[in-house]
């Protein structure tokens, strides 16, 4: 590591060094996640309910960060996909493969909690409004990317083809973000990340922000852990192949 960013990244290209770093970082991240979740959930359940929505407003603290993370995870995957296609970086391959199921899980959580919130607020479990529909499309895209990864045996080729698909799918992200502004539908317009500052009351904003940070750290914890698992899985599979070829060549009688 020579201090420059490029140097650090090429240093991390060595999966062994990456594994060592992840081994140190993941427990720290997990600890921060736990603390943030405790604070966030405590805030979420102790602050007052909304005068209109009552206690159901607390679903927001689970729902909104999940939706944010669903989009952020896709952007992380898109960045990793660029890494795969431009620099052919093996860690980038691992990064977007590991992120896809996590992103699908966040999207699923956002859809389910949104549905639970929609029932008392809108009177229906599911409404085909722009935001819901575009997030559902995001969920389908995650599933398609996972399916593509599973369909190809060779990891490097799977990663490059999936990367192309991920980059093409980026067009959907702005559609999700701006769907509530472009189409005047049931879902409320952006109230936190908007030009001119948040319109949401600070009483709701604080727990929401803490929860958002908790989710973000949870994402990175899971992502790094999943990347580590993926690297180890590839090593095991490579070792098996070597062992199998040795058996085939007749140099080793039995393995294990």
């Amino acid at each position, binding site marked *: 590591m020579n201090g420059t960013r490029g140097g650090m990244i090429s240093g991390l290209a060595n999966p062994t060094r990456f594994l060592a770093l992840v081994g140190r970082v993941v427990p720290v991240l997990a600890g921060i996640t736990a603390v943030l979740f405790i604070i966030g959930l405590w805030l979420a359940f102790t602050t007052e309910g909304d005068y209109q929505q009552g206690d159901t407003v607390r679903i927001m603290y689970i729902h909104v960060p999940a939706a944010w993370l669903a989009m952020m995870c896709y952007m992380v995957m898109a960045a990793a996909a660029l890494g795969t*296609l431009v620099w052919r970086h093996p860690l980038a391959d691992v990064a977007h493969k590991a992120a896809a199921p996590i992103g699908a899980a966040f999207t699923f959580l956002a859809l389910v909690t949104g549905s639970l919130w929609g029932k008392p607020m809108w009177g229906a479990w599911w409404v085909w409004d722009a935001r819901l*529909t*575009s997030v559902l*499309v*995001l969920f*389908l*895209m995650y*599933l*398609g990317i996972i*399916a*593509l990864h599973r*369909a*190809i045996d060779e990891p490097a*080729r799977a990663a*490059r*083809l999936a990367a*192309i*698909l991920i*980059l*093409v*799918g980026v*067009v*959907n992200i702005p*559609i999700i973000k701006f769907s509530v502004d472009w189409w005047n539908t049931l879902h409320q317009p952006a109230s936190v990340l908007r030009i001119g500052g948040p319109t949401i009351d600070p009483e709701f904003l604080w727990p929401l922000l803490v929860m958002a940070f908790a989710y973000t750290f949870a994402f990175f914890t899971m992502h790094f852990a999943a990347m580590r698992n993926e690297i180890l899985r590839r090593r095991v599979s490579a070792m098996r192949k070597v062992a199998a070829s040795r058996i085939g060549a007749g140099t080793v009688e039995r393995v294990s």
Partner: protein
Amino acid sequence: MLALYLRDLKLAVRAGGGALIGLLFFFSVIAVIPFAVGPDLALLSRIGPAVLWIGALLATLIGLDRLFQAEREDGSLDLLLIQDMPLVVTVLVKCLAHWTASVLPLVALSPVMGLMLNVEARALGAAALTLLAGSPAITFIGAAGAAIAVSLPRGGLLVPVLVLPLAVPVLIFGVSATYAAVTDPQPFLPPFLILVALMLFFAVIGPLAAAAALRQAAD
């Protein structure tokens, strides 16, 4: 490039080409809908344009897995890869040929199908016009899916799964432009122009992604 275009066109319309299959599939989808929702003419007339769009979308996707498959099987894909012409242009030409052979007849047929669904005349015209503008977008984006799936065993099933989510914006604006032409207060032009913009956008992205995927598949 013209030679490639004509060659693909001939291959598609001749026996075993598959251009006809898309048309038949479109016809089947349209014919099945009244059995499902019932022969209520008022209802059919209301959902007719949307049904036309869904039928066209599905029929376009059905034929797409063949876009590069046959050439991979007989090896001519490798020739396309090593020739001087940029691969993006080749893919674009192949997309246009596929669209002309398989999708354009479908667009031409859509007013007739619409009549069977009791769609009124203005909506018929609007549906055909939006399909004309929007269906190339589906072909372009589908080419990317077809190229990604070309090296997979049984990749044909994966193509619609990968492409459908990406085709959703096209479907949204296609149908909304069609309805805007019929219902009075809404203007037709804004959604239609967005549809055209989407088509041009995918005309760039689709072949680029498809060319990249074909190169990976050839490795």
